[in-house]
């Protein structure tokens, strides 16, 4: 059974803390994504990675960074957490170019609250 696993389902952090959200996939996928989901705004892409050590900014990268040192792991980093980063964070992965089949698989999501 294919799997994308996010390290935490719920997380509460203080303003100014450095926060790490971890995501691991076991499907040998090239692409990995981080989204944030807010009511009425859908899923907005923060960053994505199409290979190890490769990354591209999505639509809302400000205040975030990412790390992909190994193919199966993609980390989202909030350098200095702020209350406006309180949200649901979703990780996803998909196959790369030429696969012809680009379905994305999602983790369970992490609900982050910054107080």
């Amino acid at each position, binding site marked *: 059974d294919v799997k994308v696993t996010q390290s935490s389902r719920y997380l509460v952090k203080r303003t100014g803390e450095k926060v790490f959200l971890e995501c691991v996939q076991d499907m040998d996928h090239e692409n990995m994504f981080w989204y944030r989901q807010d009511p009425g705004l859908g899923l907005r892409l923060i960053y994505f990675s*199409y290979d190890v050590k490769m990354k591209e900014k999505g639509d809302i990268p400000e205040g975030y960074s990412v790390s992909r040192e190994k193919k199966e792991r993609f980390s989202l980093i909030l350098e200095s957490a702020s209350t406006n980063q309180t949200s649901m964070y979703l990780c996803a992965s998909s196959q790369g170019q030429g696969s012809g089949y680009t379905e994305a698989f999602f983790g369970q999501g992490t609900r982050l609250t910054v107080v």
Partner: protein
Amino acid sequence: AQTVTQSQPEMSVQEAETVTLSCTYDTSENNYYLFWYKQPPSRQMILVIRQEAYKQQNATENRFSVNFQKAAKSFSLKISDSQLGDTAMYFCAFTPGGATNKLIFGTGTLLAVQP
């Protein structure tokens, strides 16, 4: 810019009835993929159906079918014989394919199936 628009924030349908969710998108690409994802209250995002832009035939998966109008850039989802388990948030998504398979989502439609 590549965008996905879902103009129906909420919809309601009676059990066993048929409902259609709307989606439009904007792209200058010719080869791309379209998806409908379902997110039930459990939060796990799962793929409902996908459509390759080069295929003229509309995709069908059991009770779920799409009406793909490439010229109009429209991709609606029809759910037949609605069931209580269909209650969920439905997201339309688009990927231009290519090297990065960036996946872009709409804002979602919350569907409630009434008994």
